[in-house]
């Protein structure tokens, strides 16, 4: 029994089945991007154990195909197990060993990246200084205690908590927050512009004059959801401070008083704070003469890190990112009127894996096919002679 299992795990047939399943999955996942958008298709097909049908819960759902994580994991196990079982050192097999070792590094690196990499954005107008980047999809409900003399105390509640928890009770807050409504993607309209019969979902602040319309989730790569929620503030010593509308589409935070302190509340893109700051000096957008074809984008920024006594100007441009303290800043986009730059900020501890893997695999393939070629030409020479 165990013997059979080991045979199965180390078999070449399993490798081929996994590769073929991988091809089918990638093909289907690529076609699915047309309707789902890249991000959604990626989650459903590639970053999952199974592809489910129907995709959104209708009470029941069944797995119809192994997902990217499952196929990748089986392939990785198969690869390692086969090598452990059959490993025998000969020069003739050097190429094969190198190739597969490189592939193991690459697959493991990909898994690491999937698990630990964080991508975020930093949007800077001219002269702006920021010490945080913002998530491209996730939002957070920030509750800010502004009573401190020079420091604000921020309590950030991720949108996943808002979505699932009706009541939020946190030790740092003298009140409970009850989520009355939550919309993953929404559009806000002034009540005066909508027809009769629409009612606000909040009764405090500007939210009392705004209607919230749910909309389908964004699929285009450059669009993001606009989540909105109605939250009621219930002081822990009793009573209610009313219902407030919080939304990514509302600009300024809203203020209220509770427990003798002043609080601000806002639903904003989730933030990642950094121990250093970045200031935009100048954003440049060049075009080829007489055309609208972009020639180059670049952002000149000042990087200030008191901890490491760094204060220098850096030019970030296409194909030339800034790497600093485990994070990488890329020129990702810009405001249509060139007034602001958008930097992509990536924290990826295993970014080096593919570089190493590529070199090892390429060397392995060269050695392997080189052996074939030499053997082949010897054979031919003998045949001719």
């Amino acid at each position, binding site marked *: 029994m165990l013997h059979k299992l080991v045979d199965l795990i180390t078999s070449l047939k399993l490798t081929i089945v996994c590769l073929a399943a991988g091809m089918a999955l990638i093909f289907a996942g690529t076609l699915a991007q047309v309707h789902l958008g890249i991000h959604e298709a990626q989650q459903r097909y590639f970053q999952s154990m199974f592809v489910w049908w129907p995709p959104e819960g209708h009470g029941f759902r069944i797995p119809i195909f192994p997902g990217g994580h499952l196929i990748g994991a089986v392939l990785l196990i198969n690869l390692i197990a086969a090598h452990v079982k059959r490993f025998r050192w000969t020069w003739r097999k050097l190429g094969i060993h190198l190739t597969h070792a490189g592939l193991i590094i690459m697959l493991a690196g990909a898994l690491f990246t999937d698990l630990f990499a964080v991508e975020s954005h930093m949007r800077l107008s001219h002269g702006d200084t920021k010490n945080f980047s913002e998530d491209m999809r996730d939002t957070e409900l920030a509750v800010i205690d502004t009573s401190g003399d020079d420091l604000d105390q921020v309590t950030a509640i991720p949108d996943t908590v808002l979505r699932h928890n009706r009541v939020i009770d946190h030790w740092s807050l003298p009140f409970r927050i009850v989520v009355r409504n939550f919309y993953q993607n929404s559009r806000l309209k002034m009540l005066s512009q909508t027809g009769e019969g629409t009612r606000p979902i909040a009764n405090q602040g500007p939210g009392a004059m705004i209607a919230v319309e749910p909309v389908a989730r964004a699929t285009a790569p450059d669009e993001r959801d606009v989540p909105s929620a109605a939250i009621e503030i219930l002081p822990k010593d009793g009573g209610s401070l009313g219902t407030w509308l919080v939304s990514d589409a509302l600009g300024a935070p809203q203020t209220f008083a509770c427990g003798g302190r002043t609080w601000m509340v806002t639903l904003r893109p989730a933030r990642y704070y950094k121990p250093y700051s970045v200031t935009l000096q100048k954003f440049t957008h060049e075009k080829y003469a007489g055309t609208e074809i972009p020639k180059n984008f670049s952002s000149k920024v000042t990087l200030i890190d008191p901890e490491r006594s760094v204060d220098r100007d850096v030019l970030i441009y296409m194909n030339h990112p800034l790497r600093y303290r485990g994070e990488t800043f890329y020129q990702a986009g810009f405001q249509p009127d060139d007034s602001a730059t958008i930097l992509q900020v990536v924290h990826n501890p295993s970014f080096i894996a*593919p570089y190493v893997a590529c070199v090892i695999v390429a060397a392995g393939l060269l050695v392997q096919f080189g052996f074939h070629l030499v053997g082949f030409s010897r054979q031919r020479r003998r045949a001719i002679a």
Partner: protein
Amino acid sequence: MKRFLPWIILAFAVVLIAPSWMPPKTAKDDFDFSNFGEIPVLVGGRVKPLDTVARNSLLIIHGKQELRLEDGKRLSAMQWLTDVLFNAPVADQYPVFVVQNSDVLGLFGWQQSDRKYFSFAEFAPFLKQIDEQAAQSDKLEAVQRSAYQSAILNLRNGLSLYQRLKNSIQPEGAQNFAAELHQFESAVPGAAKAARERAMGEDFDKAKLDDVAQMIQRYERLSEMAYVLAVPPFERNGEWHSVGDSLLRSVATGEIHPIVAEDALIGDAYRADDRMLFNQHAQLITDWFGKEQPNTTKRASFEFLFNRLQPFSQSMTLYVLAFLLACASWLGSSTLLRQSAFYILLLALAIHTFGLVSRMYLQERPPVTNLYSSAIFIGWGAVIVALILERIFRDGIGAACAGAIGFVTLIIAHHLAGSGDTLEMLQAVLDTNIWLATHVVAITTGYSAMFLAGMLAIIYVVRGVFTTSLKKQTADSLARMTYGVVCFATLFSFVGTVLGGIWADQSWGRFWGWDPKENGAVLIVLWCAIILHARWGGFIRQRGLMIMALFGNIVTSFSWFGVNMLGVGLHSYGFMQKAFPWLVGFMISQLALMAVAAMPLDRWRSFQTARVPSPGERPQISPAPSAG
């Protein structure tokens, strides 16, 4: 005598293509369009000869690089453009605009007939309507547009390009433009004085000011419309301007740029049918450029030569010839025909290489920068590998593959060129020669190898099933070639794909983003891995290898073209709806061949007659190394 047959055939091929390499002769008393066409201008961010502008514009509007009038007279692109620039009323009557969509014709109340070319004059009453309809479809993404919407948008773009061309060198309909400029130049100082006086609150000559103000308005319109920037800077890294722009600048300097003045004289001479004067002033401009901008001029006249030679269409002819000779060599008098095919292929490859290198020189880029150049390069790479195979095996198979792939890829390139300038400037993110030279070249070399393996499999199946010419030795050679080429493809596809990931890591901040083009590339790598493992594991033999290589054609064509048709992702440059039926047709043909190859071996004509053990049953030729 027979020994010389290959050389005779080669000589015949040289004679076939020689005429295009001869310098053209213009009769002394005719318009010298080639001299005029060599003049450099700036369009689309790149300095190019006027001839390129003419060819590309006519290609966009008309779908061809030559215009045939209803009376059968042929106009070269330069002849057409000269009319558009200087003699709009005549050009307006030429049937250049292609409309084949019956809904678009119906919009104007026209019934569809066998006529598909229409003149600007015919559309003139409907311009506003066309604009409105096009604006509606412009709001949609290319993938979402219906056939009608794409057609009306194309028509609008063609018409607008045409109108901009008409206002590039002089205002449309100007009759005596040189005189007008002369008057403008002499009126400017007086007007400037009047303007100063007005600003100071003194008495000023209103008539003088009004004259010039009117002209300035006219030149402002001209500068807004201009498509061609024809006026070069005096200093090396200065900016190019359109004629209208340059004239507006003259108001400040008081001087008209010599090129503007010369262009005006050329236009007047053309309308007056004064050939001597036209040629004389065209020569003056080329002389001016040769003296002031030697480098620009050298490049532009080389591009002019390149346009005229059309190296890729010459290679195309030769590839067909070589393919036919190679196939014929399997029927009889094999050695001589095979050698002829080989020589002709060398000639074709030389011309192909000349074209490829010329493009690199003109663009100052690695060979592949867009879909068009990828087709050129894939063909080039496959032809070289196939010729090496031919050199080793000497059985006509490599030669046949080289001919077929060279021809087909150049045909594909020819059809991809319809969108205009194939030497276009690169988007900012692509502006890096290192990655274009490594990632893109490796990936396209991988495509070449995959198609070559597929072509070898096609030969195996077609010769094996439909003829009796597939002997055991040939079959074995084919299998060895296919296996070697798949190994080659694996190496390049893998390295190319990973280099692409590293480039993405450098420019977008992630190694892998599941973008369609990335997925397409990895599909090829996976398919290669499956083929190699299946062979190493002994799951497939000769015939299985061939069937899998055929499927490789499908995977590669999906990766090359299919993913671009999805219209998603960062790589989705060059969307082409028109190619879709062709792609599907190609895939179906490959599936059909796979089905044919899967027939029982006693139905294969070659194996029926030979009565040797079928290749599927025989042990492998080369010892298969076991895989991990």
